[in-house]
């Protein structure tokens, strides 16, 4: 799991996932 600093009360977490033969960095922004 990768995280970025909480800014504007918004949390941002990410995970690099393989989708078949490609790589998606899924980034989710959620409110704190």
């Amino acid at each position: 799991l990768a995280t970025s600093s909480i800014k504007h009360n918004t949390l941002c977490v990410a995970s690099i996932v393989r989708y078949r033969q490609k790589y998606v960095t899924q980034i989710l922004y959620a409110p704190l």
Partner: protein
Amino acid sequence: NREKLHVEQKLAIESIRKFLDSKTSYDVLPVSYRLIVLDTSLMVKKSLNVLLQNNIVSAPLWDSKTSKFAGLLTSSDFINVIQYYFSNPDKFELVDKLQLSGLKDIEKAIGAEPLDMASIHPSKPLFEACLKMLNSKSRRIPLIDKDEETHREIVVSVLTQYRILKFVALNCRETHFLKRPIGELNIISEQNVKKCRMTTPVIDVIQLLTQGGVSSIPIVDEEGVLINIYEAIDVLGLIKGGIYNDLSLSVGEALMRRSDDFEGVYTCTRNDKLSTIMDNIRKSRIHRFFVVDENGRLVGVMTLSDILKYILLGE
């Protein structure tokens, strides 16, 4: 020579269609890429920061309560918010605290047509994704798969018309044979093109965007010469600046918000060819071409939808 051009163009189009049918949406995806997703409990104004900070104009929504994909956030949503606020100036508090999950209510409150959100499986032919996009009048289509263990939806990516045309321009040498003038292809929208003047209030221009179901409004002078355009995505800058309080601004003043890295409005004439158009799409991020005459007067507009529709269904 004309006959030769016709035949070459027809053969090239057929070859490009075969290419689109032989590839899947998955093939368009880079080997490694980012996908930014917003939780529907995020506030609208925070989501605006996220879009601008990441230099994107749209993002898929994730409803963590149902663990499902909840559609796409697009500039239409921000336009709905502006129109709702313009009709209900007393509701500032509600607008200011609005969450992404509340956008559907805003859509209903102003009677806006919900965006038909077609989606497609990444393994389907690219040709099919293009047709779905054209039929749903949206300029982008989410690629949805299922987690093979939990069967929960995965938003794999969102394909846009621009990305598909760029994929064609990069991979189909046949685009070099599209030499017929675009004025002959019935690909330019010339009738009822909604336009405005630099002094038109920006709120009226926003109404034109929604009434016409278009994503840009050309700005012309008294002789009909094209000076600039107002795009749906300019609304993000309007809200960011908080000047949606002051919607009496003229569209010229509202355009002062545009950031300096705006690349400018692309124009062409009826004599231009799709070969050069596709070459420019390959090199630059272009979303439409305004067609002008030799004096710079506005003749019409050719959007990426028009180009894609011609490639898929024209000839």
